[in-house]
């Protein structure tokens, strides 16, 4: 028998020797499990009455999804508000995309200098660390609550997301193609817009649309939490002000339908990309 075989303490043959990664993963799984159990005991349950909360939630969900109706607003208005939310998401995405495209040229290691690339990456990491809602509220101090703060705040996160996606796509471009153009005396701008962008076009479109899909959800949240208006604000009013579960249901369903349509479109773009 081969000399490489190892035996367990009980004399049976070992079938595997877990490497570092596997050992780490095993301990992480055990650790997460323990943390979760302990975490449940550490949470603050002030004022929680499950015997009341669970039936009430079920009752609310029943009203929402079994008899949804718009009681305090009209269908025209609701759809207009969806348009507002979509517009907010669109503006944040498209403005973010333009800025991101140029930042991504500076971030992709094959197109830029290391110091520039690292500076932008560091900047983006910090931008991403601030929750979107805080960005929006911070801009609201300067610009007032409303569309401007919402769009600019959401744009910051979109930039953080898109620069990473774009620059990774740029880094995939075959070095030979860049070299070929450089050899023929093309300028930096030529290389960017004759090689890099056309080569990665489908990825850029796919990532941008994916961000638009995310931004729709974010815009709903900003309407509810940061005074950005749109369907999110209607949702906030229906639940927090009118306590009208039927209307909450109707609005949630409208949001759900729009979100699913966007997700299906994004999936389709991803397949063709």
């Amino acid at each position, binding site marked *: 028998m*081969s000399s*490489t075989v190892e035996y367990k303490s009980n004399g049976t*043959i070992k079938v595997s020797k877990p490497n570092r990664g596997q050992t780490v993963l095993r301990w992480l799984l055990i650790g997460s499990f323990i943390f979760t159990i302990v975490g449940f005991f550490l949470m603050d349950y002030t004022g929680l009455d499950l015997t009341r909360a669970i039936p009430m939630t079920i009752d609310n969900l029943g009203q929402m999804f079994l008899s949804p109706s718009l009681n305090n607003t009209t269908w025209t208005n609701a759809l207009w508000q969806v348009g507002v939310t979509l517009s907010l998401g669109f503006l944040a995405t498209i403005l973010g995309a333009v800025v991101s495209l140029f930042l991504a040229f500076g971030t992709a290691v094959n197109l830029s200098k290391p110091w520039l690339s690292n500076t932008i990456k560091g900047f983006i990491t910090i931008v991403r660390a601030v929750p979107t809602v805080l960005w929006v509220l911070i801009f609201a101090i300067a610009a007032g609550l409303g569309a401007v703060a919402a769009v600019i705040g959401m744009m910051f996160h979109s930039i953080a997301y898109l620069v990473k996606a774009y620059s990774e796509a740029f880094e995939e471009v075959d070095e030979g193609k860049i070299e070929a153009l450089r050899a023929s005396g093309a300028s930096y701008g030529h290389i960017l817009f004759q090689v890099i962008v056309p080569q990665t076009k489908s990825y850029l479109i796919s990532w941008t649309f994916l961000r638009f899909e995310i931004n729709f959800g974010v815009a709903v949240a900003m309407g509810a939490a940061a005074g950005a208006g749109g369907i999110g604000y209607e949702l906030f009013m229906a639940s927090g002000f009118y306590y009208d579960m039927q209307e909450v249901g109707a609005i949630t369903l409208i949001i759900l339908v729009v979100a699913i349509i966007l997700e299906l479109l994004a999936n389709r773009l991803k397949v063709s990309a």
Partner: protein
Amino acid sequence: MAVDKKVKEVNKVEERTDFNKKATDNVLISFDEDIEVTGQEVETLSKKEVKQMPVIMSIDNLYKEYSKGKNVLKDISFDIKKGELLSIIGPSGAGKSTLLRSINRMIEPTSGTITFNDKDITNVKGKALRQMRTNIGMIFQHYNLVDRLSVFENVLHGTLGYKNSLQGIFSMYTESEKEEALDIITELGIEDHIYKRCDELSGGQKQRVGIARALIQKPKIILCDEPIASLDPSSSRVIMEHLRKICNEKGITVIVNLHQVDVAKNYSDRIVGLNTGEVVFNGHPSEINKEVIQNIYGTDFDDLIME
């Protein structure tokens, strides 16, 4: 000791590097009567010997239709003899892979019958299907190993067909199974790597793990789906020689999908040629000639001639 062995193996590999330099090309056809890629003499069977062998499996009128009206396999019928090495050749898209997977029912044929050891296996289900599959080993072009598990664990996966769900989930392998796995691993020359993760191995080593996993099933037949298509020439030769050896020494029937005609000619006892889902050739490797190849590879044959 171990070092000696390694040096020997390195030498062996170097000897083999001259083998079949063009194997990485998509389709390789060579007509030279004295095939230079053969290297050493391979022990194959004569036409007469093959004829006298008993039948282990017969395929009758097999059809496979993926979408309505588009048959991938059309009226396939041939016998497989016990202990032969049978190659199936044909252009890509001819249905080689579908045919191979129909044999162990990884793909359900639309109609036709497959008889294995005098039993109709076309419609077996559940436990009988699992039992049938333990008798038929399979190796794959992309090795299909669980990359993150050790070589040893991957080989032992071949015994799962004999276990119930709980025994398998808790890795209850018996010592005799482990020892047998070690014997097979040693036979295939990968005993130095038993505790390595499979993604640390080279392609040729991975394929040997694949063969070991098939062998521990104690199969009657081994199906090989393009076993050397992703390998370099020297590893390809090691794999083909192992398959030939399994066939000669253990008497296991080996069915290999290949796209290299010269490899098929060199190692097979019999060759079946497939074109657009139909059997267009079924005979001894010595019967392969220009016309036969033209029949198998179709009209764009002229484009495939190299030099």
